């Protein structure tokens, strides 16, 4: 028998999460593809796409939890990394359209023909290859995070200053991507995708495949983040969050640790964005809006910081509520979201995961507690 992975032995929330993910990853596509659509247990393609979208958001929330929960950096710009990953995927999907566009141009996407671009801009080269696009999904957000972080952390910009700078970053990108001259489709963004790796995006099978890919990405993102945070680097992160000076005076280059974790987090966000785009079918600059980024933070706050699985819970709950409320009571949604920001910060600083941990539900697990768990709980 393969023994239970060590890093999950002490992680009840994570174990439950991975279990649920595994079941969902098998069951949802199965119920969609094999069960007759009149049957009670049938999962519609719409529902599956919606769930897939939530999974991407959950991965994004984990990325934010890494930097906010563990490192104490309140990033109001993670939407930028998510969207950049999404654009990289979108560019690949655009080039897969080929001659099937409205204008039937073999090389140029429709919006470029419409805007009379003579040729493909240089930065669109290579996106016809899937592997290249996937590389860019990782490299572009990662590089941006690295460069931004290199400047910000080296000069010891912290706290609200840093938050505002990250917000300015995503705001600037939004302004830039709204411009037609940028070559990313202006305010319409990229859409009308046809297929991915030769499979039609309209078919249920492809949808199911994307759903499974999202499940795997979320599980992988969770496990790798858990691994990083259980390592000494993870301990260092919380140490930096709590006493940055102390960490420095015992010989750690604080800015390096911040920089790499920030970059890792941006890469996770980029991957989430790349999976989001084919399931939603569009990517446009509104994803860069500061509001979008700050909403991610509230998912994490509601779920509970520095727990990783709390981020997943928060993303799921709030996005479900959002889908429901924006359809049923559109006016109420923003009131509700605003009130949520206030109530959670005032009355629920540890989020839903905090309730869960205090509850009696977890008591039997405590027997297995080891040193790491103590540290884990202490992180709250």
């Amino acid at each position, binding site marked *: 028998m393969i023994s239970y992975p060590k890093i999950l032995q002490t992680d009840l929330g994570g174990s439950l999460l991975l279990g649920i993910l595994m079941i969902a990853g098998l069951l949802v596509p199965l119920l969609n593809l094999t069960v007759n659509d009149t049957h009670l247990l049938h999962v519609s393609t719409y529902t599956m796409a919606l769930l897939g979208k939530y999974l991407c958001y959950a991965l994004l929330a984990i990325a934010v939890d890494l930097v906010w929960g563990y490192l104490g950096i*309140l990033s109001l710009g993670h939407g930028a990394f998510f969207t950049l990953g999404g654009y990289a995927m979108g560019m690949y999907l655009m080039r897969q359209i080929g001659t099937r566009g409205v204008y039937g141009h073999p090389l140029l996407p429709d919006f470029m023909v419409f805007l009379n671009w003579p040729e493909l801009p240089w930065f669109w080269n290579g996106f016809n290859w899937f592997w290249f696009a996937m590389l860019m999904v990782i490299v572009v957000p990662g590089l941006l995070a690295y460069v931004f972080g290199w400047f910000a952390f080296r000069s010891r910009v912290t706290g609200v200053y840093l938050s505002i700078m990250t917000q300015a970053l995503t705001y600037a990108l939004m302004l830039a991507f709204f411009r037609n001259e940028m070559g990313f489709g202006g305010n319409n963004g990229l859409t009308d995708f046809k297929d991915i790796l030769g499979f039609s995006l309209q078919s249920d099978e492809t949808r199911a495949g994307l759903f499974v890919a999202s499940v795997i990405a979320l599980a992988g993102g969770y496990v790798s983040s858990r691994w990083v945070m259980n390592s000494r680097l993870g301990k260092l992160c919380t140490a930096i969050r709590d006493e940055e000076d102390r960490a420095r005076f015992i010989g750690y280059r604080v800015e390096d640790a911040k920089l790499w974790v920030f970059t890792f987090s941006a890469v996770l966000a980029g991957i989430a964005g790349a999976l989001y785009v084919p399931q939603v079918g569009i990517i446009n600059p509104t994803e860069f809006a500061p509001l979008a980024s700050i909403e991610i933070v509230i998912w994490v706050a509601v779920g509970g910081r520095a727990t990783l699985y709390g981020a997943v819970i928060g993303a799921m709950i709030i996005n479900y509520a959002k889908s429901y409320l924006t359809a049923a009571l559109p*006016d109420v949604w923003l009131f509700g979201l605003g009130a949520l*920001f206030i109530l959670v910060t005032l009355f629920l600083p540890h989020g839903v995961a905090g309730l869960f941990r205090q509850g009696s539900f977890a008591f039997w697990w405590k027997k297995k507690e080891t040193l790491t768990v103590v540290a884990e709980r202490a992180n709250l």
Partner: protein
Amino acid sequence: MVAFSYKLKKWILYTVVAIIGLSFGSLDRCLAETTQIGVFNEALVLLLEKNFSKKSVAIEKLAESGDARSERILEALLSGDLFYLKKNKTLVYAHREGSAYAIREVLTDEDLGIEKKRKLKKIAINNNLRAQLKDVLARMGLTHADAGIRLAAVNKMLDTLTPEIDELLTDRLETETDPDVKEALMTALSIAVLRGGPETNTSDRLDVLQQLTGNLQPAVRNELTQLMEKETDADLRKAASAILDGIEMRIAIFEFFETLFFGLSLGSVLVLAAIGLAITFGVIGVINMAHGELIMLGAYTTYVFQQMMPDAIGMALLLSIPAAFAVSGLAGILIERTIIRFLYGRPLETLLATFGLSLILQQAVRSIFSPLNRSVTTPDWMSGAIQLNPVLSLTTNRVVILIFSFLVFAGLSLLLKKSSIGLQVRAVSQNRPMARAMGVRAARVDALTFGLGSGIAGIAGVALSQLTNVGPNLGQAYIVDSFMVVVFGGVGNLWGTLIGGLSLGVTNKFLEPWTGAVLAKILILVIIILFIQKRPQGLFPQKGRAAG
């Protein structure tokens, strides 16, 4: 007795003569006026004739009549807005309203409502008449009592100079007293000479050319550019080129000043928006993400006041300054007491909670006032522009807001420097525990400071309502920029905010022509990110040991 009666008689005689004389005099004038009115009416009758030459006479007569209504009639004739009613041949001004025409009577300026097209007949003109009309209107403009209108008339003629008009201008120059009009007349005449072509004496043209040195009229520049293209005389070309360079240089200088003005104007708006934020951030150390929405509240207060007082727009604007201060200030105190107070020492959480608040405020405004933009009227004394010369004009509302923001800044620094509450605010911002130990009620100071900062945001909203549309997203548009100003200027320093805001505004406006508005904004953000590399504390860091 005799002497007396003699004197009396003499008085009586004088009186009688005087009365007779007076009555003759007024009679004389009456007669003259009747003739003028006669000319005017005669002209109007002639206008209705089909014959163009009779219309021409009518135009001439209208010009001579001296009647105040003539000019409008002639202009309407020129623009094709002069009609008559078929049924009774009444002259009317008409302009299209859908498929029919809205008409006003020419003689009385009485509104006659809407009339169907087939009931009206347009007074037609031909090209000759058109030229005549322009000529006549120009002449009338030149002799108008108002110097401003005379000036406009001269400038209008620069493009259509003919020998006849030259003559008119020369005549006018002799009697003209207003220096501006005189100068314009001379410019026009100079251009006329330059255009004279080969038959005009070259040395004359050279002389005239010298007179145009530094002249900023666009017509002058066009003239010189054309001259450079066509002229064969080398001297003339050389002189013209030198003068053209001089003019371009002056224009460049004035354009520089214009950009500077727009930059300062933008900067002053940024300062207004950011200064309240600087106070709350400096003293309490929290970032109020709902600051933009407090600005928005101020703008909506202005809107409401104008709705309540539609007849006194200017008054409503003035009254809304204290009102907006009160509304936003009270909202600020409420926010501080109910939310921020519980989050002191947790700046990131404060940021989130106030962000949530900003969402609620935006949505509330959307529900109450509709999501559409509302327009706030600009009072007369703030609209228009101050034309300093042909290339440099300053929009009045921007000038007023520039001055206004300096006043607010001065008032605020005075308040913080001289008043006892200002002293307490400064004490708390520098050393909270010590201030508390000295008996300052820090909680009260926090609330008041927050109220003050928010109130200033409300005032900023009043100013902004004069520049942009008032809508639920008004605050959002300014919040990132205001933060940049605070970060750039240094926290807790009013001067830093002033210098930071103005320099960001100016930099932005100077970058714009090179890069376009959006790229300029992005560049500014990048510049600030690089700037805080070198000076993380901003332009004016707080001094002392605590700063480390």
